[in-house]
């Protein structure tokens, strides 16, 4: 297990560094002067020059990256150009919204998708075809459009859920659940059938293998063969797919937070993109790349737990 974590670490650190470095280098090509952008066109040149020095913009690029990185490691991600507030504080107030959206979405996708895939692999027939068609639909229907359709149906036409707006869990658990319901359902609908299809093909691959036939020959019950042996063997590729699905859901969440006006990292990123708020963008990419590599660690560990060859 130590080796698995070690191997993950060797990939994870470069990923976080490369993403932040790439963003930083790209950001340095921003046309125009951030200091000028902050102070406005009418500010006197001396004042702009002073701010440039204060922001460290007169330093060479590697020096600036190093300073940013050292500060970031100490929890200081700079100040937002839009709000002048601390980026770290802003992110901290929003990360829970995004994580709960993706987290609950992923839980539903995993539970429903894996069950559906397993059952359709064993029973086959029409359920298999339903999974095939649904997975194509899940691929083709954009989440933001589906979200709007659900709003039109279950918030406007039949007002069961609030159309938009967010209630904090600490303010009202019921209101929080109601405000998260449609976004989570939308996110889950886009990914479930795809995972079900992957699960089905993994399970069917396993069912065709020699060891399954031999377990049968050795008098092991069908139930045990499927729930224990096939599930465990098919589990490793499914876990990998769930990991990749998570990264996809991050992108989906950005759009859904905008559709449902949720105060998460996604809507913050969109706002920062519109306002060219580079410090916020840098902060978001750093946080998200850390979240992604953490999820990858979870994937690697589950993979190793399922597959003894990796563990050894």
């Amino acid at each position, binding site marked *: 297990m130590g080796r698995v974590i070690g191997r993950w670490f060797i990939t994870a650190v470069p990923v976080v560094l490369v993403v932040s470095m790439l963003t930083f280098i790209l*950001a340095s090509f921003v046309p125009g002067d951030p200091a000028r952008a902050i102070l406005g066109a009418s500010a006197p040149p001396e004042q702009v020059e002073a701010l440039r020095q204060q922001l460290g913009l007169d330093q060479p690029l590697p020096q600036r990256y190093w300073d940013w990185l050292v500060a970031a490691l100490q929890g200081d991600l700079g100040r937002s150009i839009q709000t002048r507030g601390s980026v770290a504080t802003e992110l901290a107030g929003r990360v829970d919204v995004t994580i709960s959206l993706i987290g609950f979405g992923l839980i539903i996708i995993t539970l429903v998708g894996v069950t559906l895939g397993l059952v359709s692999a064993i029973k086959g027939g029409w359920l298999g075809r339903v999974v095939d068609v649904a997975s194509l639909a899940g691929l083709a229907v954009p989440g933001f459009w589906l979200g709007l359709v659900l709003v039109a149906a279950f918030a406007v036409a039949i007002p069961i859920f609030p159309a938009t707006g967010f209630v904090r869990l600490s303010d009202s658990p019921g209101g929080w659940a109601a405000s998260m319901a449609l976004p989570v359902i939308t996110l889950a609908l886009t990914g479930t059938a795809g995972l079900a299809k992957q699960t089905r093909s993994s399970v069917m691959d396993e069912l065709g293998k020699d060891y399954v036939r031999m377990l049968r020959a050795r008098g092991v019950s069908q139930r045990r063969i499927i729930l224990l042996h096939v599930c465990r063997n098919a589990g490793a590729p499914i876990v990998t797919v769930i990991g990749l699905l998570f990264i996809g859901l991050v992108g989906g969440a*950005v759009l859904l937070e905008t559709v449902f006006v949720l105060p998460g990292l996604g809507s913050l990123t969109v706002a920062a993109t519109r306002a060219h708020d580079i410090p916020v963008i840098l902060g978001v*990419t750093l946080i*998200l790349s850390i979240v992604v590599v953490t999820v990858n660690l979870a994937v690697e560990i589950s993979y190793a737990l399922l597959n003894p*060859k990796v563990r050894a």
Partner: protein
Amino acid sequence: MIRRLFHKPVAVVSLAWIAILIILSVLAPVIAPYGPQDQDLAHALEGPSRAHLLGSGVLGLDVLSRLLYGGRVTLVSTAISVSVYALLGVPAGLLAGYRGGLADKIILRLSEVAYAIPGTIMVLVVLAIRPGDETAAMIAVGALAAPALARVVRSATIALREELYIRAARLAGLRDWLILRRNVLPSVMGTVIVHVAIFATTAIILETGLGFLGVGTRQVTWGEMVAEASHNLGNQPWLLVPSGFVIISLVLAFGLIGDGLRDATAEGYSIRQTSRARGRGNKPARSAKPDRALPNKAAANIPPDPPPTGPETGALLALNGLTITFETNGKPVTVVENVSFTVAPGQMVGIVGESGSGKSVTVAALLGLLRGTGQVSAGTMTFAGQPFDLSQTKALAALRARRIALISQDPMSSLDPCFTIRYQLAEVIKANTPLRGTAVGERVLELLRAVRLPEPELTARSYPHQLSGGMAQRVAIALALAGEPDLILADEPTTALDVTVQAEIMDVLRSLGKAIILVTHDWGLLVDLCEKGIVMYSGQVVEEGSVERIVAQPRHPYTVGLLRSNPYFATAGQPLPAIPGVVLPPGRWPVGCHFAERCSLVRPVCSEARVALTVVRDRPGLTRCLFQDQVAAQAADQAAAMGAALGAALEIGVQGTGQAAGSQP
């Protein structure tokens, strides 16, 4: 493969739809009834009407016209992404796969990093830095996804690199880029197009997402039209329909092409699989000609052969009239025809025959474990006095492991890779015996000792991948013994193993003292281990009797040929004779003697009617030949030459295994 795609109506419709959308978008300035920004304030936010065929949005902007213009942005952006994706991914993958080394390492690393980057976020980063520059954003989308494609192409290239024709081309001194372009690229093209189609779906959804967020281009886009709809959900939900339809239909078209191509690739694969399987006889051939084939019903109504030899009373197993069919293109094709034999308690019976003779299938049917579409269409079995209908697999399940155990050809793949040997043995013990608790653990070690594994404790802790082939087969035998069966079916148990290991495994099998049916194509093993032999050819038993009699006095021309072509009995310095002709695939078997086409003694009468098993004259045994006296005369010449060799072979066989086992610590 691309051509096969055109036989799929869904794929053709999809391609046509993409083409139509492209043409309509190109012609937008000509055919659109309004300009993209033409206002019609009198008819704002209305449903479909004569003036506005697909309705109108805010300020009375015409939905149809805006869809036509918007398509240009989506299609061009998708084309940009897809080009970057393919132009970066394919060469990088070819390079990594073909050259290996540093290029390979770099590309693998890059793909790992790229997998971990959420694409949407990076695209937003690009747009934060280059506001409204959708081209730059879509280039980034393609570039971020390219390492994943490179990885796929790399795997396909590595597989190809080892193919003979590529190696031959390399040895012939062809330049690398020429080999890549002429030989490698066409072969990986199918995979590439599948991935390009799937990636196109991602690119379209992402592009419309950018339009929806309003961070992409300033021109009208489909995504922007969805955003417009979102502001008017309360008063005109219709607006969601046209924009949603074009986006979903375009993505679906690419998705269906990808799926269709993948299926086409898979079909190509399965056809190759089938033709390979044809040789092995597991699956019947595709080219089955029903006119020449024995009709299935007739096969079931064949008059029974005379009772098989051997001890009739007190037989452990008596198989009667087993006929097995596999389904090919919806038609049942007979692969095993009317097979009967008996096994006495503790008796070792060998079934020999070429690949495709039906011996493995016969054995599998005894436990109801036929693969795929295999089905027992007739056949009964009496096991330990209890009658069974072999077409009722449920009843046979009760026999598995406790009465009849199976050992398969490939020991490694017969074990679950995810569990320790201890776990797998304990599972089978618990499933088949009343043992529980610590007694199970003791029994595990006892079984591992019984198959002479030198370190049972260590083996018990191991996973299958930590064992050698010989050790794995011993474990498989231990698993077969776990249910304390009366009969073991050993289906070519040593084919996958080294010769020295073979002898050891045979020694273990011999020491068990159980009845064994050994399926093999190795006369050496048969002579070495079995008392009784059954020779199968094209789904029929053609000869049966004591192994000694079959080897010394064969009474079927196929047995004669099989013996003569076996290196075990060959004379040094003489070329090894082969049986002329090939085994006919199931479905093309003639009504008369199945061996007629390859037989040197063939007469017209052989092909006229079904040949029955007859009793061998003056010796116990059966043969399915009308001319056993002629066979005897032919075999006598051979026997004279072989007599000495056989005697020696029997000696060597016994001693050889004994020594090999003895030398083992």
